[in-house]
């Protein structure tokens, strides 16, 4: 049982100051922009909620949000089951475990724009291994700079390559924490592999899978650098996800009011969906 101690605030003060400095000042800047209109020269006018109405009703925002939801949905549907399957297939002990873990963690530690550049080199239709193999060995016409479907295939494959290991490592951490006695008991009861998975392994992985799904949701929903380097949002607008569109509006067109309003709506959607995931996945747990 934790004891009540109001002096504990002194312990959290450094953290509070550092994070508040980074979070509150920029957040207030964004709020400030989102309710004003400017015609340049640093002259601002109060514009109320006009920017919010503008963003909420703009087809451009709806299109970007739709693409973002499709991308994040695909990522979660592919990476979570694939990651769990690989974790189940991993050896539980032995010399190979370290080797597998190190190799799997490697993509997680590559700077995000290098990931984009690397996939660019890998997928070039004429000289990249992936592009060349698809075009010349398998006979599938593939050019991610011209064909939207090929561009989507490439960004999804890139993200699967980049982040599935995170799910694997988390699920694996959950699996190795299961005592051998559980498996022995299941064996005595004559449980089939599916039953072992459903009633022993899955419940034990629940906590770590909650973390995995939350992290994968947040990071795929906020993805910017990798996709921006690989496709730049193209061809056309076909891979312009929310962050890419936001940066185009804010830094490309310097449309600060609209960008600020969009930022806040974007952040609120992320918070809301994360909270729903969290609430659904932990609802059976005693608090």
């Amino acid at each position, binding site marked *: 049982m934790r*004891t*009540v*101690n*109001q002096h*504990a605030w002194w*312990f*959290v003060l*450094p*953290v509070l100051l*550092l*994070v508040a400095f*980074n979070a509150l000042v*920029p957040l207030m*800047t*964004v709020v400030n922009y989102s309710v004003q209109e400017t015609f340049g020269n640093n002259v601002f006018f109060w514009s109320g909620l006009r920017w919010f109405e503008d963003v909420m009703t703009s087809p451009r925002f709806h299109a970007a949000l739709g693409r973002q939801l499709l991308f994040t949905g695909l990522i979660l549907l592919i990476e979570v089951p694939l990651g769990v399957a*690989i974790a189940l*297939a*991993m*050896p539980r002990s032995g010399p190979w475990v370290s080797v597998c*873990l*190190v190799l*799997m963690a*490697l*993509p997680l*530690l*590559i*700077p*995000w*724009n290098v990931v984009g550049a*690397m996939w660019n*080199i*890998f997928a070039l239709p*004429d*000289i*990249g*291994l*992936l592009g060349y193999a698809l075009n010349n060995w398998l006979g599938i016409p593939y050019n991610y700079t011209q064909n939207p479907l090929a561009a989507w295939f490439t960004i999804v494959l890139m993200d699967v*390559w980049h982040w599935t*290991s995170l799910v694997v*490592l*988390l699920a694996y*951490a*959950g699996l190795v924490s299961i005592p051998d006695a559980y498996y022995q008991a299941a064996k005595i009861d004559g449980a089939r592999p599916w039953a072992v998975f459903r009633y022993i392994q899955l419940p034990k992985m629940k*906590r*770590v899978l909650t*973390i995995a799904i939350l992290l994968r949701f*947040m990071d795929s929903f*906020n993805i*910017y650098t990798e996709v921006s*380097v690989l496709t730049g949002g193209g061809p056309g607008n076909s891979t312009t996800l929310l*962050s*890419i569109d936001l*940066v185009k509006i*804010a*830094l490309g067109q310097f449309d600060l009011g609209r*960008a600020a309003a969009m*930022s806040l709506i*974007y952040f609120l959607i*992320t*918070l809301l969906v994360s909270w729903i995931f969290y609430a659904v996945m932990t609802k059976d747990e005693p608090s």
Partner: protein
Amino acid sequence: MKLRAIAVTVYILFLMLPIYWLVIMSFKTTNEILSGFSPWPQVWTTASYRTIFTDPTWYSGYINSISYVTINTAISVVAALPAAYAFSRYRFLGDKHLFFWLFTNRMAPAAVFALPFLQLYYAIGLFDTHLGVALAHCLFNIPLAVWILEGFMSGVPKELDETAYVDGYAFPRFFLTIFIPNIKAGIGVAAFFCFMFSWVEMLLSKTLTSVQAKPIAAVMTRTASTSGYELGLLAAAGVLTIIPGAIVIWFVRNYIAKGFALGRV
């Protein structure tokens, strides 16, 4: 059993292919790259690597990246230690809300904050400094470090604290000489994660720097776009950005599984 080994092998091969291609590209001559597809360099050359190691704009990028990543890791872990202790041992007014609020900062899209960050750091004179980037990365690394450390600290029985008080240890001495050695693994894991997310993050570090503190990965894309499309050079720089991460993983390989579960299995 066979099928499982094949599945893991195929997955790891899939992970290695783009890396293999990057490494191969870095040893090809520009002529060979542009002349068409070849699965293996016809002529091996280290020209790209030589360029990087002799040109200050290139290698200073590495020094910049490593500087701000190190500063950030130090600040995040040191600040997070007492906070994580407070969250794991005490109840206080607003503790749950504070914990949740800290974590919401991990959810904020970096693209949302890029422009306000630029203005803020410009205003306080930390634009284009290592300290500036290190402080900005605290936004998402401190919540993560607090979360990981809190998980590890909650695994240490409270009796340890109580015994130390009975034995007459003052809090600072207890914390530094008894408690911290008990959560060494947790500190290692937290430092690893701070290193990782500061090393791979590019949007903020690129926005907040221009010359003096420019990270290597940003040098890479800028150089690639200004001096024509030099794929060999780009690939070599990419390979060099993978190496620090690989070294760090090797050191923490035994803690990785637990660490990725953030001490909460």
